[in-house]
């Protein structure tokens, strides 16, 4: 089976910090900026 390639994986490889990876993942997933802010703040709370 052919290996799945993805730009998301590429940038996750390039970025070292977890929160940077998370931000890019959310952006690649086409989330709206407000939604991204909410997700990031909620994850910080927990």
């Amino acid at each position, binding site marked *: 089976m052919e290996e799945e390639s993805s730009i*998301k994986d590429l940038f996750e490889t390039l970025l070292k910090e977890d929160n940077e990876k998370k931000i890019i993942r959310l952006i690649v997933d086409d989330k709206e900026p407000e939604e*991204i*802010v909410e997700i990031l703040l909620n994850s910080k709370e927990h």
Partner: protein
Amino acid sequence: MIEYDYLIERDEGNEVKEFRPDKIPKKMENLCYIEGPNSSGKSTLLNIIALGLYGLKNNRLHPALQDKLKSLVGSNHQKLKFTIKIKNKNGSLEIVSEKLDLNKPDIIVKEITSNGERKLSKEMFERDYNLIYDIPHDPTQRLNHLIDDIKDAQIRYGNSIGRLKETVRRILAEIDSSRNPKRISELNTQYNDKENELSICNKTIEKQQLQLNIVEDYTYFRFYNEYKIKLNQVQGKIDNLRKNAVKTEKKTHNQNSEYYTNLEIARRTVQEMQSIYNKVSDLLNISLTKDKHYLNIWQKIDLKRALEELQFDENLEECILHFKRVLREQEDELKEDESSKEADFFNALIEVLESYKRFNLTIPGMEKSISEFINDLKVAAEKHDTIIKKRKNIEETDAELAKLKREMDKLNTSVFPDMIRLKPLLGTKMSDYITENAEQEISSLNNQLSEFQNKYEYYENLYSAKGKPIEKEIMSKGGKKIRDYISYTEEQLKDKIKELRNSINDETANKRTLEHSRISISTELERLKDKKPHRYQNQVEALNELLSKLNLLESKFKIDYDSYIKEIIDKNLSKNITKEQENYNDAIFHFLAKKIGRFAHINKEYKAIKVDLINGIIHTEDKKRIHLQDMGTGQSQSAYLKGLLNTSDKRKVIAMFDEVAMMDNKSLEPIYKKFRELYEGGKLLAGIVVQRGEEVNVISKIK
């Protein structure tokens, strides 16, 4: 299912020709291979589909293809209208693009689903759909173009980070202007602080104003009376001199005699002594606090009589010595005073520190600069101002008394003895000389009179303006403070008035600033109290952290990664690349390998693990190094097209490949396989491969 229809009207000068699809069927399967001779309409079909799906504005389309799309709609001799419909496998989604008017440029793109119909703008289309339209002319070069996808993505994500950053900034601004309990509490504290400062400021102004009134009342009263008396005294002296001058007839005398030379010296010295005597009299009035009865003796001394008697009043020397002794005692007492010692210490300290003011030093334990510390010391020393002034006046009186004694001794020891020896030879001529000089003295006294008159009028005006308070009233209002001012000279009192006025002006300016600040705080408080709290009120710190992280991330995508990928595209690496750039290149090369996946080369299939675009080498899983230039053209095209289809996002793909002439069935098969895989997964809406052929032939590639 793909359905289409179009009409092209072309003006050929002598006639207008119409072109419609007549060779290629208007309905075909979603995945198909079309071959046909030139002018059979196969490229026109692909161009119209691309045009209908915002291909003209798609900067990923090859410039040669863009030109073809432009010629369809941008020529004056040609008009076009069309309808394209692409329905997915189960009919749940349909994309319709229409240009219904030959003469209007409008193209409408719609998406029809079970939820209804919605128009798709270019941005909406590009967000949800991915139009891939390519002509792989030069496969080895075009493989490089895969990297354009990454470059585009970097720019796209960099922009998204920028938008996210703006959103965070906006939220922070909203929080700042919303009802923020912490901010309200801070503002309340600030408001109370300003209130307190204002209250202190008002009290200071009130206190200083009161003090100014006291000093003004006292000064104007004192010098109004003092100059009134002085005026009378000078006027009396002038009158006396005139009376005596009239009685005596002016006579000539022998100016060459030694006696008159000495007399002239004595006259000038006595005149100088008179001026010192006057000054000492004023100073003694304010400086002397004990044994004041000597002042009565002092005031009766007539220095000019010495010119006739050739000796000074015997009380002069006694008074001088007495005053010097008493003043020394007074000074010693003042020096022993704690307040005086403190003032001396502060002033000595200020003098030392002034020499080090230019150095940027901080006083240990105080966290203050030298200049700040000097200011503090000056304020502290200021409290002992009165005692310092008293000592200064005593020192000055002592110095003037010494001067007076020196002049007296000079006459007593060297001038008067000669005059006494010569006098018997002169007879009555001395009184003549005195008369001759009376006019000169009257003139000098008139000058003094004019000066006193001016000062008298000056103080009279000021005193009247204050309502001419009587002495008792001034003393009772001034209380203890007045006793300090008694020892001040006229200049010292005038300086005090000036200093108080300046201080009141400064405090008033400070008060205005405080009032403005208080109003601003109050307005801001009112505004905030009307607002509702923000949902992220308590997460300002986290938002600021996020903002700073986004700044770094944006710069990484828009600056660092952009420069790295440009070097890969230009195949021009910097000499000393950083570890970060090395990692980046490595990640890109592995990513490209994943995009290509398995590929065929000389009858064998390989799996790419790294595509080194700088050196043009594909590294395979079984450690083979295949140079791109050695790859069969068809195989290279196949690898490239497969790469294009390996998209990473969720967008649905419409893929069209034209002029794949160099690819044989073996090279094309992986493409069809990929088409089917994506189509079955619901990700591919349409996949069309077009090639030149002898006859028109449309073959479904769904099974």
